[in-house]
């Protein structure tokens, strides 16, 4: 199937998150994988950074497109929580997807724990690139603007907007703040 994608922009950074669901060839049993791809492009740069990773190995989903959309939304949500520095929520969501921590309600064989942590490692490569580039773009934008905007408040605001965008049907969002308050400490 084709890639499903959503894009976000922050200042001079364009971030595209793509996902596709596909059946893996050469397996006796039907086997499936949802792949995630991150494309990072800085304005004026000739090349983009592209990172691809397996997102998860689902059982046959009802719709390949829905599965791919879910992966893109999930990935953007995690980015939103990371930006907002909401670590507990990020852990809860990663654990729901990769089941690497036992909970009071769910015991976990150590094989699942080890495999879950390994699965997270795979998806973290594109995730880390996207997160690090967003942080750099935010810092660069603050420096260019010379504004005294508090970083944690700005990150929380952007994280919130990414979370909203993840749930929307829209394919693109520009996260660059359009207005800076007169005292230069907050944005809209």
């Amino acid at each position, binding site marked *: 199937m084709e890639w499903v994608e959503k894009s976000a922009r922050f200042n001079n950074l364009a971030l595209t998150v793509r996902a596709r669901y596909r059946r893996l060839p050469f397996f006796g049993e039907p086997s499936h994988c949802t792949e995630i791809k991150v494309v990072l492009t800085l304005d004026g740069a000739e090349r983009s950074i592209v990172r691809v990773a397996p997102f998860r190995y689902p059982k046959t989903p009802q719709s390949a497109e829905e599965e791919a959309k879910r992966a893109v939304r999930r990935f953007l949500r995690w980015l939103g929580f990371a930006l*907002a520095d909401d*670590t507990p929520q990020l*852990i809860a969501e990663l654990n729901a997807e990769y089941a690497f921590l036992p909970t009071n309600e769910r015991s*976990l064989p150590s094989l699942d724990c080890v495999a879950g*942590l*390994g699965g997270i490692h795979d998806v*973290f490569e594109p995730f*880390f690139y996207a997160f690090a580039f967003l942080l750099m773009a935010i810092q660069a934008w603050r420096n260019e603007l010379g504004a005294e905007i508090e970083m944690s408040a700005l990150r929380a605001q952007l994280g919130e907007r990414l979370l909203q965008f993840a749930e929307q049907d829209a394919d693109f969002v520009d996260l660059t703040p359009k207005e800076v308050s007169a005292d230069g400490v907050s944005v809209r």
Partner: protein
Amino acid sequence: MEYPCAEKGVRFGDLTVVVRAQWHRWPNSEPPGGTTEISVTLMRDGIDARIVKTAPFRKTDLPLRCLPHEAPRFAEAEAKRAVNVFLRWLGLALIDDVWQLLIELDDAYRFRPIEEVRELSSLEFLTNLRDVGSVMEPLLAVLTHLLCAIHVWRLQTDVEADATSMCVQLGEQLIAFAEQDGVRFADFTPKEVNANA
């Protein structure tokens, strides 16, 4: 400069596992530091090819009081520690003691925030979780191969021994082996089967 590596080998049935670690110094780093790399080699009797998985184990600074000529000793101790810790985690995973495994992984990589004790920013959390994830690849490879080797041994010997208790026994042997100094190889293939098998 190449520092000495540490190595321990384990055998079960037709599977041989070699765990090796080596500390590499980063060039021109200040303070002087390096990465301990862990690698596992999986070999099956009669098969030419082998599986090799390598991962960074942990990053360490040289101790402040470490003189240049003492660096190889530090590197060797660090490598030995990595091999023993890896074997211990493998043992805990085989025993299925997931809580103890998580506690030890968390001690090493600090990827779980603890309320009012260890606050983690999302960047720290993500970095640390990624680090623990990278060492899981060789761990998962050895774990799954050992589980397969146990099942293969049961089928080949036609013994009705319970696979879970065999895993626990092997896990305990691995934990004990990890604590032994000076022993570099152990064969954990069961030598005797009791009368009721």
